């Protein structure tokens, strides 16, 4: 029996583990190794050059530009998404008619959740194409003509080096809010009602209930969301690659790390150097996850 059991365990694990090892783990490990070499990706020969790639990285103005842009997204995107999603979840949950504070949701909340979530199920290229065309810089572009009708001047949007990165930021936010709204909403509806009743009896209004009861109870979820959004902001590729001119333009205004990795690794024949960028990206991810989980740690509330 026991023997048969081990055979069964091995039999069930061997295929999934083998695939995972070949296509996921081994490339991750190799990336660390190649980051210490001058491998071109073409020739089978390469030298071990220590940390030289990383030294070069600190002088690479294009890469530094990409890092700076990623940092802008990293700061702006999670903050905006979480605030908007929390705000909408708040409205969904406590904006209802009637005097039950924090208890009644608005009518039609099902529809709102259904609608807000849609960008999440569509592929990034689809979203990128739609926004690229809507933000057409000519005066007759969709957004420009709408802006003109309400009295604003047009803009170059993605063609404007000062605005392009914020357009990318906006599309990221636009696409992510629905997911986090649904997430926060699910977490909110698992908060027991008697906590709200107690708050009402104590005379707390909608706003006080939200900030003093709901947000502290959601803290765990908010924290996790922050880490996920940060990873998303660091790993952004498809949106920039499809939507921006160049890609990464205009004038490298939307250059990001992933784009640099793809260019160096596949176009410039600098696979080792690109791997070093990947390692930097990895450590950014690690550091940010650690900081977020540490800095925002609070007493976990069980209910």
């Amino acid at each position: 029996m026991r023997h048969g059991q081990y055979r069964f365990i091995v039999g069930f694990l061997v295929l999934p583990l083998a695939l995972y090892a070949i296509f996921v783990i081994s490339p991750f490990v190799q990336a660390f190794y190649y980051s210490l070499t001058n491998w071109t990706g073409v020739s089978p020969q390469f030298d071990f050059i220590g940390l030289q790639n990383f030294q070069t990285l600190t002088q690479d103005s294009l890469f530094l530009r990409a890092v700076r842009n990623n940092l802008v997204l990293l700061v702006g995107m999670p903050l905006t998404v979480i605030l908007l999603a929390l705000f909408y979840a708040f409205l969904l949950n406590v904006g209802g008619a009637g005097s039950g504070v924090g208890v009644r949701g608005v009518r039609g909340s099902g529809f709102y959740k259904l609608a807000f979530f849609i960008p999440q199920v569509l592929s990034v290229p689809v979203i990128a194409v739609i926004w690229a065309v809507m933000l057409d810089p000519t005066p007759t572009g969709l957004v420009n003509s709408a802006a003109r009708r309400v009295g604003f001047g047009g803009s170059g949007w993605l063609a404007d080096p000062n605005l392009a990165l914020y357009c990318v930021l906006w599309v990221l936010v636009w696409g992510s809010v629905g997911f986090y709204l649904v997430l926060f909403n699910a977490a909110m509806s698992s908060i027991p009602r008697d906590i709200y009743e107690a708050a009402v009896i104590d005379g707390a209004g909608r706003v006080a209930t939200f900030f003093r009861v709901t947000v502290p109870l959601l803290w765990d979820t908010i924290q996790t969301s922050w880490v996920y959004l940060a990873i998303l902001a660091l790993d952004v590729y498809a949106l920039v690659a499809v939507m921006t001119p160049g890609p990464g333009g205009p004038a490298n205004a939307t250059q990001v790390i992933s784009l640099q990795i793809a260019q160096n690794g596949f176009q410039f024949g600098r696979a080792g150097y690109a791997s070093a960028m990947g390692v930097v990206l990895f450590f950014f991810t690690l550091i940010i996850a650690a900081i977020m989980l540490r800095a925002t740690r609070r007493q976990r509330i069980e209910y």
Partner: protein
Amino acid sequence: MAVTTRTDDAGTPTATPPRQAGDGRRAGRAGDAGVNVLSHVVLIGWSVMVLVPFAWALLASVKTSGEIFGSPWSLPESFQWSNFASAWDKGVGQYLLNSVIVVTGGVVLTMLLGSMAAYVLARYRFPGNRFVFYLFAAGMMFPVFLAIVPLFFVVQNLGMLSTYQGLILVYVAYSLPFTVFFMHAFFKTLPTSVAEAAFMDGCSHAGVFFRVMLPMAKPGLLSIGIFNVIGQFNQFVLPQFLSPEKPVLAQGIATLLASQRYEGDWGALFAALTIAMVPVVVVYLLFYRQVQAGLTSGTLK
């Protein structure tokens, strides 16, 4: 609480609260109505912001290029159904076929291998169990771009660049972490008694899995299955680098955008976009509870 609210609404006179409190309550109710209306205004505002781009893209698929850019807000003079034909001529049919083949193979294999691994990890104790589980779980956190350059060469060395089997295997490998994580939690919650009864009747370990546990796990399989269908159908980064010569639909869309900057057949581009959007949106509308539950459950824990 609902009861309290109702008596509150109907029975304020009989409750005869002190006058001041009553005044406060009346003001509060007016405020409530205001908050309610304002909530709807804001929520409808964002819904419009989300839905208008998609509606506009659908409409653009039957407009001429001149109309898309010249009069973006107006309805087309006549419906240009030929846009769909020219999108098809530009290879959208082939891209769609590639996507369907890869996603079908990818999802079937992901579900099979993922639930096998999850089941063993959730239900059997053996040395290294935790390690294997965390190895899978860690895959959810790593940035794909760390691996993409070496991954390209791994797939190249296997002679699998731009092949269906190459993409399928890579999709499966990158879908395993979340699938294992999700199904692991699901198998943990299933009762042990049914499996024990099956063992008593002489069923083998594999037999219990395929005949007892897998059927019991159907709700979980449905959720994660739909999640994988949507996720793999929308995959762009992996095929972009690993399958340049056999593009899937998401890649095809990106390529079409790039070529329309020269060709200028924007109607065809939006027809292609519609072909890419409609199946996913239909699946989403049919299963949106499972989709939302599946997508958010990984983050909630």
